Structures are given as structure tokens and as C-alpha cells.
């Protein structure tokens, strides 16, 4: 990336990133503060006691996962995100919600579905082709009555 300032020399391990208009939490502690206030705000609208309802829990986790992985390109970083792992932890209750999401928007749901179901309906020749993988999983969901 081109430096805007010839006097700010970046060391070999330095990383230069574009800064967006959104606030950047640049350290772990700073991210913890951002996260705490985000949870606080979410709980203002959706009381914490409703967290036990699977639909609400799934959407809270999904929103957090999407917001915090939006800028990531590594699939392993995306699927290792704590919110994604908590969706896997919801077990079979999450399957219809994941499939419904998948039918609306393509995203990296394959790892979660494989982890929860211990199945993989994707043909070997379609691995890596997101549209085909999604199609295979949606058909799998229809066959098992998870979605219409």
C-alpha cells in the first residue's frame, strides 16, 4: 500500500491499513470495551432473558459474527470467530436458521453445517464453488424438512 507520508517509515513487519469512518478498536483491551458496549446496546433492545430463545440467540450471534468478520478474508479466521463457534454450539437448533440465511445470502456456513450434522452433501467436484455448495446444502435441508 502506498504511504501518504514519506517520513513515516514502516518496519518490515508493519501493516498499513485503510482507516474507515467506523471507529477502529486497535487493541485487545479496546476491542473488549467496544464489545461490552455493543452487548449493552443489544440488550437494551432485546432483553438478556430472551437470549434463551434459539431464533433470537442465533440472530444475535450472526449479527456479531458478520460485523466482526466483515473485513476478514481468511476462511479459518472467519469460522474460528467466537460467535460462529457459539452458533455451532447451539447444535441442531441452529440448522433451520442457518439454511434460511444461506437461502438469502451466500456466506461461510458450510463449516458450521458440517460440524453440527456430521454430514457433507457437497459433491467433491463442487468443493470451493460457493453457489454449488449452497445449493447442495439447501437441497439437503429440504429433503430433511428443515426448510420448505
Amino acid at each position, binding site marked *: 500500500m502506498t504511504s*501518504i507520508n514519506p517520513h513515516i517509515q514502516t518496519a518490515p513487519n*508493519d501493516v*498499513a491499513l*485503510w*482507516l474507515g469512518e467506523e471507529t477502529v478498536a*486497535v*487493541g485487545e*483491551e479496546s476491542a473488549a470495551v467496544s464489545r461490552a*458496549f455493543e452487548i449493552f446496546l443489544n440488550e437494551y433492545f432485546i432483553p438478556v432473558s430472551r437470549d434463551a430463545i434459539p431464533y433470537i440467540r442465533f440472530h444475535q450471534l450472526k449479527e456479531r459474527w458478520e460485523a466482526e468478520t466483515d473485513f476478514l478474508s481468511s476462511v479459518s479466521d472467519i469460522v474460528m470467530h467466537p460467535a460462529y463457534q457459539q452458533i455451532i454450539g447451539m447444535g441442531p437448533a441452529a440448522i433451520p436458521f442457518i439454511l434460511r440465511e444461506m437461502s438469502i445470502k451466500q456466506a461461510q456456513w458450510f463449516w458450521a453445517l458440517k460440524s453440527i450434522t456430521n454430514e457433507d452433501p457437497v459433491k467433491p467436484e463442487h468443493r470451493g464453488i460457493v453457489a454449488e455448495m449452497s445449493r447442495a446444502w439447501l437441497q439437503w435441508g429440504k429433503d430433511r424438512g428443515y426448510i420448505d
Partner: protein
Amino acid sequence: MQPVGYLYRAPMEKRAVQARIDGYAFNKFSPYENWGAFSAEAQELWQSYVETAKPERLKRLALRYINRIEIPLPIRDFKDYLLTIPEIAPRLPQALSNFIMRLVVPNPEMEATAVINVIMEQPLGRQLLPIIFDIDVFKITNHAGTSEEIWYDFDQLRIFKNEIFFNSITDKSKELFQ
């Protein structure tokens, strides 16, 4: 997303500098060493920023220290470690499983303000309870872009920050930082 500047990160040295259209920030991640080394590097990079961005007026100066205190469990009373914490009415149950507290403290003498966030995170196993003690002290100014007065202001802000920090932690907490 509209870009507003650059973030330069030096992961090995745990520091970053933000050169933004609307400002400049120098970040140092844990472990924090000392004010002398921190401010010297911040000043050096600030000079580079001034030469390039040529700021006309400096509207806001701020120092933010986000401390993470890991309190060993079990604890009898939070006040054994931290004195700036939420107070529960004495007739209510005193146990807390989570809290988030935000205080805005003006300092008319310095014409500065502190925003203090105290947050309890989830315990790390059964041994440690992380508390985030976040102190953001700032001052609204109207200095010229090249003004040297900002360094005096930063020293004052640091004094204010230290007053808050050292009057909020106990000797037991200080031991955790050693």
C-alpha cells in the same frame, strides 16, 4: 466504507499510529513501558504528521489508557482491588455476575474531562476475573496546528489520568501489575 486515513501497525513492537484526515493517534499495546518513551515516539511521529497533513487548528487532545486487571478468584470484596466500582444498595444482594459502568468526570481546574468505563468481563476459568478499567481524559483546545503547548497539556492530562488511576486501585491491585 469511506476511507478516512491510514492505520500503521507494527505487530512485533505492539504499537500503531493512525494518520487520519480528522486527527492523529498513537497507540501502544500491552505491556506499556513508560510515559517518557511513549511520548517521545508519539512526538516524533506527530512531527511527520504535521509536515504532511498541515493541521490548522488542534481542537481536541486526549490520552486514553485501557487497563486490564485480572483479579485472582475468589474475591471477598471488589473494593479490595478497585475503589471506582458500582455501589449496590446495602439491603440488596451484593453478588455481581456482570457490570458495565461509565462515569464522566469534569476537571474545571484543568478544563479537562475524564470518561471512565469499568467493565467486568467473563472469568478466565475459575482463577481470574478480568476487569477493564478504561480512562479517557481529554481537553477541548484551539491551539495552532504547530503549537508546542500541546505537550504541556498532555502532561496535565497525564497527571489527571494518574490521579484517577492511582486513587482507584488498591495496593493489592498494584501487586498485580508487578
